[in-house]
């Protein structure tokens, strides 16, 4: 008998050793959240507060997603706005979002988001996430951007405990302190369904083993598909738009939901950012000067836009993709001097404030010039600059002359730009910086109801499935708005909360 048992055990051991891929671990939770970014963590915190058992899956080795980089979130009629006397009503915000989208957006969703936004600021406050000030989205616009203040660990104990990262840190700690589980380096791989209901998630852990997580409800929050070249080509008109944000946004959540019948919405819209160059820090001063609204031309050497429309990024993004996706920002040495010695006129959000003297411009520009990557150029004459840029010198000269005339008479006869941004290009040397379209992420995804329930092609909710943040579509028409600062971050937090609240009602954990 012992010999037989020994044989059988050897057999079993051999099987187990020879086929590690068959290893499957099983777990269960009330709510599984796929993605530990802004929307996922907000959903997790809300679900835990509602009494649910929560597991969060995260593909990267750190939580936060693009929530590691943003600064603040949208709200209308918050306590802070009321205190300061900022008049941005919920009605104004709702109408702005819907009208800007030409009503291509999901009215029920936009209303749910806007109406919840003020209470969310209080919710964050109770969690220890404080607001430093309320600012704008586009320069000079309505004040809705609730910029998050540094936490107590900043800067000595944790130099990354400010802006949205502060909120991520608080969420992360909350989940850990209240019995939630976050599994890092554990991407969700699929949804488990039973008779048309979503009842769980499959995932793959660090060791390659499969996880099967049974759940009452699943919240998809993987951040869109900006890093998935195939999906970008399939859905976005200008797929080479440079992504600025975290890595790993591969459309996992959207594809998982699609595989169980979810409909998609708004997949062609991206969150246009200021045009620029790939791989430069948002506070880089070479870029900061290049995006000042003075004189931008197409590769033919022709001006194509009111440069100051960059204050609403999608206007600049649409204008540059319309002319093929490449432009050159050209300024002379007098403009360079002004920016370096007196400071820039148009700020770059929180990154390079208005009036900042660009003392680091020279180092950055010269470093890039030396790299000879075709991004920046310097010449002593417009003629020479044109040759370096591969432009017909006659065309570029004509464009420069036209701008110089406009600067002199203080009127832009080409694009009606505000006269304060009309500067001559006359004093050598002359500098050119290439501009390319950039974006902060995709804005389309799973089609959802006003309760963030994933919908099928018949508009019916798929039981047990929710999609939030940039894994969901419906907040935009063909373009990002930027009009209400903090819109996407605010939507991420609010949609996460809405999903958790509804998931708990659906699964009977809450009333």
């Amino acid at each position, binding site marked *: 008998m012992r010999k037989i048992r020994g*044989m059988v055990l*050897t057999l079993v051991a051999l099987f187990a050793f020879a086929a590690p891929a068959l290893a499957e671990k099983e777990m269960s939770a009330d709510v599984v959240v796929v993605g530990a970014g802004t929307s996922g963590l907000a959903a997790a915190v809300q679900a835990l507060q509602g009494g649910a058992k929560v597991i969060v899956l995260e593909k990267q080795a750190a939580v936060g997603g693009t929530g*590691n*980089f943003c600064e603040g979130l949208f709200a209308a009629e918050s306590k802070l706005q009321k205190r300061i006397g900022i008049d941005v009503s919920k009605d104004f915000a709702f109408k702005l979002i819907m009208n800007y989208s030409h009503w291509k957006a999901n009215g029920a969703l936009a209303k749910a988001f806007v109406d919840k936004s003020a209470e969310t600021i209080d919710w964050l406050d109770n969690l220890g996430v404080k607001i430093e000030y309320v600012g704008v989205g586009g320069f000079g616009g309505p004040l809705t951007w609730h910029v998050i203040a540094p936490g107590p660990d900043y800067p000595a104990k944790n130099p990354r405990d400010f802006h949205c990262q502060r909120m991520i840190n608080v969420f992360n700690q909350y989940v850990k302190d209240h019995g939630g589980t976050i599994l890092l380096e554990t991407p969700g791989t699929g949804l488990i369904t039973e008779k048309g209901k979503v009842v769980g998630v499959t995932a793959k852990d660090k060791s390659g083993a499969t996880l099967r997580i049974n759940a009452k409800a699943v919240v998809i929050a993987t951040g869109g598909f900006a890093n998935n070249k195939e999906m970008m080509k399939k859905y976005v008109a200008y797929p080479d738009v440079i992504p600025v944000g975290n*890595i790993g946004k591969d459309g996992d959540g959207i594809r998982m939901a699609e595989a169980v019948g979810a409909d998609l919405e708004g997949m062609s819209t991206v969150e246009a950012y200021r045009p620029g160059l790939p*791989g*430069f820090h948002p506070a880089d001063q070479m870029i900061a000067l290049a995006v000042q609204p003075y004189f931008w031309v197409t590769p033919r050497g022709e001006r194509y836009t009111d440069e100051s429309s960059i204050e609403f990024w999608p206007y600049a993004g649409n204008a540059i993709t319309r002319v093929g996706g490449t432009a050159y920002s050209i300024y002379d040495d007098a403009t360079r001097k002004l920016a370096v010695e007196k400071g820039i006129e148009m700020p770059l959000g929180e990154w390079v404030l208005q009036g900042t003297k660009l003392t680091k411009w020279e180092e950055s520009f010269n470093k*890039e010039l030396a790299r000879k990557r075709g991004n920046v150029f310097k010449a002593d004459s417009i003629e020479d600059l044109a040759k370096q840029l591969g432009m017909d010198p006659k065309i570029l000269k004509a464009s420069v002359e036209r701008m110089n005339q406009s600067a002199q008479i203080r009127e832009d006869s080409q694009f009606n730009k505000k006269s304060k941004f009309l500067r001559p290009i006359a004093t050598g040397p002359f500098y050119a910086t290439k501009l390319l379209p950039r974006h902060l992420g995709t804005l389309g995804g799973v089609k959802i109801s006003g309760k963030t329930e994933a919908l099928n092609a018949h508009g019916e909710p798929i039981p047990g499935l929710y999609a939030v943040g940039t894994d969901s579509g419906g907040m935009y028409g063909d373009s990002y708005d930027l009009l209400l600062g903090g819109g996407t971050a605010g939507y991420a937090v609010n949609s996460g909360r809405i999903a958790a609240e509804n998931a708990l009602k659906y699964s009977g954990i809450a009333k």
Partner: protein
Amino acid sequence: MGRKLILGLALGLAVLAGGVLGSAGAAEVQIKGKHAKEALACADCHKTDKPVAAAAVEVCLDCHGGYDKVAELTKAMHANPHDSHLGKMQCLKCHRVHRSSEIACLECHSDFDFKDK
């Protein structure tokens, strides 16, 4: 009869298992970079003489003293690749042993002057 059958089955499986495991890894592979000078054998990292898959990251961390120790070594850099917003990444994401390494940071930060040694 029963015992012989079971024995036969067990042996058969052993042969199969051995075959599956042994077939892929026997070819000669070069060690690149700094590890080349350490006189390492396959088993030192892969824990087997006939590896079929990448070594476990725990092995890297064992020799190199753990993630925090590695982060200490690079903390003077302009941006510490071992203490970044990407978290404690799998070593093999950047540092390859049998082919050239890649630097994950450069995917977005083209202005970092990093070189993997």
